[in-house]
């Protein structure tokens, strides 16, 4: 495969290295002379100095016969334009762009880029489980009693998943009153009802045991086993 990479920074360099090792014909286009020299020293004669958005540069890179065109500079607008020039002027079949602002993903797709990859979105996808994105939603505080009704979604990693309601170690004076499954069907659980990932759980608890209830809901399965 003939693959053109625009941008000889860290991403471009390691991408080129891997693709060369896999037996592809690779050309890196980079503006900066020092970076070009580094790549040439490490990977050989696979680098062209120039602006990957310029028609003339892409012409001399033989973009017309490229199977794949990848733009990985640090600027979204440069990656967009490089891919659009490759696609519309040189008819490259497949263009891939790196994007920094994850909100540009939809923009790039609608402007004809085949694949837009956001490093920010990838990192977010990996850490999302650990972010407190499944808070308890207070539905109602019962006046005078110090009780409240809360709702929470059971995350897929929760230790609760697959357990019977009777097995759960709920805080004192806490009662699961309704479980709404992913199809939106509500059930009044008994102690044999099994909790599934994605269930919405409605519970009554004491205001001060809210944190304890949240912990029961969101503790990942592995952690509980270790205890």
């Amino acid at each position, binding site marked *: 495969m003939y693959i053109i990479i625009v941008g000889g920074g860290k991403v471009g360099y390691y991408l080129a290295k891997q693709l060369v090792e896999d037996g592809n014909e690779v050309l890196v286009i980079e503006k900066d002379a020092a970076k070009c020299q580094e790549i040439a020293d490490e990977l050989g004669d696979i680098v062209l100095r120039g602006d990957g*958005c*310029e*028609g*003339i540069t892409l012409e001399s890179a033989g973009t017309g016969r490229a199977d794949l065109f990848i733009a990985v500079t640090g*600027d*979204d*607008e*440069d990656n*967009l*334009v490089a891919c*659009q*020039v490759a696609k*519309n*002027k040189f008819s490259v079949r497949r263009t891939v762009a790196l994007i920094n*602002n994850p*909100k*540009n993903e939809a*923009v790039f797709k*609608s*402007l004809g880029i085949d694949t837009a990859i956001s490093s920010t979105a990838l990192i977010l996808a990996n850490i999302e489980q650990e972010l407190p994105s499944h808070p308890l939603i207070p539905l109602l505080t019962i006046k005078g009693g110090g009780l409240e009704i809360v709702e929470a979604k059971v995350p897929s990693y929760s230790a609760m998943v697959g357990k019977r309601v009777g097995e759960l170690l709920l805080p004192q004076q806490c009662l699961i009153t309704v479980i709404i499954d992913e199809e939106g069907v509500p059930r009044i659980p008994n102690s044999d009802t099994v909790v599934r990932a994605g269930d919405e759980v409605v519970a009554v608890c004491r205001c001060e045991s809210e944190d304890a209830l949240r912990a029961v809901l969101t503790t990942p399965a592995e952690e509980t086993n270790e205890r």
Partner: protein
Amino acid sequence: MGCGRVGTELATLLDREGQEVTILDIDPDAFDQLPTDFKGKRVVGNGIDQDVLRRIGLEEVDAFVAVTPGDNRNVMASQIAKHIFGVPKVVCRIFDPIREELYHNLGLETISPTREVAQLLKKALEREPGGED
């Protein structure tokens, strides 16, 4: 978008004509060039960020002009204005004549000062010395 020489000049012309103008630049110091009686809105922000464009109300504007020094920024912002926000009139400055031709063919309204000025200069050179007055 872009409060450089051209942006300032255009914004001032339109403002004096009585149009409602918003001028956008990433550098807050850029607005110093505007005349003191400029009545339009000055907004600091990145014109290729959809959130910024939404905040300045791009959904409701009649026209959008991109004149930053960066061709690619202008191209990206103009495409977002046209295709995402559906702005009825979008004009994009592109210095590089090759890119200008490409985006013109892709349906953007484009102006390449490089090409325009080169043609003006050529015409000026072709005139007889002293022929113009």
